[in-house]
């Protein structure tokens, strides 16, 4: 297979194309514009459709329509652009439309900054739009994973008839690494669930919209909640390093997990027993990973590019508050490895107060 050096964002776009994406609509915003730029020429090459919508709201709803017709369709954004898409995404969920969205996180509230961040965690995994839902959320931490996750995302969405979110960040999106290209998947948009033209007098037209309009609400609710519980049980993914004998365990996703892993490597050489749990799915949160933590572990530290330590609450739930939990949340920068190791050392020595959840 062919190996190319590309940016994370380009890999994400190419992965989607090779995974059968034939409709993309979006609106430019740093640091994810390379996805849109790549799609603008690549869709033409593969006989797909690229639309630069007049806004994020238009784009997310175009994707709804294309996906309802059966085509593998996606959109992407960042920061305030991702906020604008939330209403549309909630409609995808209620209609059971297996579309894909990528958010390449920037840092900041409102307009924010063009550089990387991880402060969209709450918005991404705790809902975003209205109603009881989570998106199946994948968090790549390399250029290769940007490609692989996008490549797989439509099948995952179709398996559950539920949207998938790829939650990347500005660093993973902008960095370049060698990336191996998988074969192009063929996908037939003529799916049993898709809307198709119906000739006059030949049966009923299929309407794909908020499903609760057409079904008994209690019946719909029961099926939906059963599905969501099953996703929660079946789709947890994570990676772990050196957790068996770890005195302190780091928990990090995306770019922070790369720094955390380096910190573990350096610390272990110095005899400091650090370990790492790297959630690959952020919803469902990989609670199973935390079952293996040894009882002598002195603390769990999340490493995050935000101010409030947004992921901390999920860690506390995962360990039922049985271990002291801390957040090393350093806003728009990932803490350098020295700082990570020094913080973990202080946790080991019992010199840090447990971090409160916001």
């Amino acid at each position, binding site marked *: 297979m062919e*190996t190319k*050096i590309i940016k994370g964002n380009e890999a994400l776009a190419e992965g989607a194309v090779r995974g059968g994406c034939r409709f993309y609509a979006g609106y430019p915003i740093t640091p994810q514009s390379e996805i849109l730029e790549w799609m603008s020429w690549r869709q033409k090459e593969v006989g797909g459709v690229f639309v630069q919508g007049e806004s994020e709201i238009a784009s997310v709803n175009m994707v709804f329509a294309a996906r309802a017709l059966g085509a593998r369709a996606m959109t992407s954004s960042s920061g305030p652009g991702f906020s604008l898409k939330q209403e549309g995404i909630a409609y995808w969920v209620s209609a059971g439309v297996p579309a894909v969205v990528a958010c390449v996180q920037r840092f900041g509230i409102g307009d924010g900054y063009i550089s990387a961040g991880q402060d969209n965690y709450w918005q991404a995994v705790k809902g975003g739009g209205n109603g009881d839902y989570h998106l199946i959320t994948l968090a790549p931490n390399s250029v290769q994973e940007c490609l692989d996750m996008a490549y797989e995302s439509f099948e995952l969405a179709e398996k559950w008839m539920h949207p998938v979110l790829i939650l990347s960040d500005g660093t993973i999106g*902008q*960095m370049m*690494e*060698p990336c191996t290209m998988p074969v192009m998947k063929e996908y037939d948009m003529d799916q049993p669930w898709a809307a198709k033209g119906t000739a006059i007098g030949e049966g009923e037209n299929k309407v794909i919209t908020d499903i609760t309009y057409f079904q008994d609400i209690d019946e719909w609710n029961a099926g939906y909640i059963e599905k969501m519980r099953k996703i929660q049980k079946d789709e947890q993914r994570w990676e772990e390093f050196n957790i068996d004998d770890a005195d302190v365990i780091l928990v990090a996703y995306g770019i922070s997990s*790369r*720094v955390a892993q380096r910190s573990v490597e350096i610390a272990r050489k110095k005899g400091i027993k650090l370990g790492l749990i790297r959630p690959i799915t952020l919803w469902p949160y990989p609670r199973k990973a935390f079952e293996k933590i040894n009882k002598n572990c002195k603390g769990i530290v999340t490493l995050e590019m935000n101010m409030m330590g947004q992921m901390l609450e999920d860690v506390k739930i995962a360990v039922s508050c049985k271990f002291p939990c801390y957040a090393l949340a350093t806003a728009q920068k990932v803490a*350098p*490895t020295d700082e990570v190791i020094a913080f973990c050392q202080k946790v080991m020595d019992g010199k840090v107060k447990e971090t409160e959840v916001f």
Partner: protein
Amino acid sequence: MLNEIVCAGLGGQGVLTAGKIMMHVALEKGLHTTWFPSYGNEMRGGAANCNVMISDNKVASPYADHPDVLFAMAERAVDTYMKTMKKGSIIIANSTIIPKDKEYRDDITVIKVPATELAQKFGNERSANIVLLGAMVKHTCIFSKEDFEKYMCSYFESQGKGKRNEQNIKAFEIGYNYI
């Protein structure tokens, strides 16, 4: 063996390209590599830098916290990165732009090459980054001269800029042979 390299200078000096060439050569040699850029909104004149990691093993963090090599095209690069560099590390300094009396840490080797001036004499100031790459390859043990020249050319070919390869090799050798 992990090499943490920072290429830094001003926008328009070709520091991001220098880093991309290193990454491309590393990949061709079967090494693991990452490249991460940082730059301002300006196309020219603002600070520009990239972190290049090259290793025998999978690279965890793409951030060069403690550089082994600083590829410095402008004075600001030295001011920004020298303090975090490892003991025994090396600075490849473009001494046309960085003042002659610049003070450096005494536990760092500094190779001063007037890359911009050499490139001007050679007839193309924009080759200063390639001149400095020549000096870097000579004074570090990351790449051999033959490999670097070969794969630098294949990098430019992959970018549709292969017709300047003869010139690029000349610029590279001027830097390589300077000290």
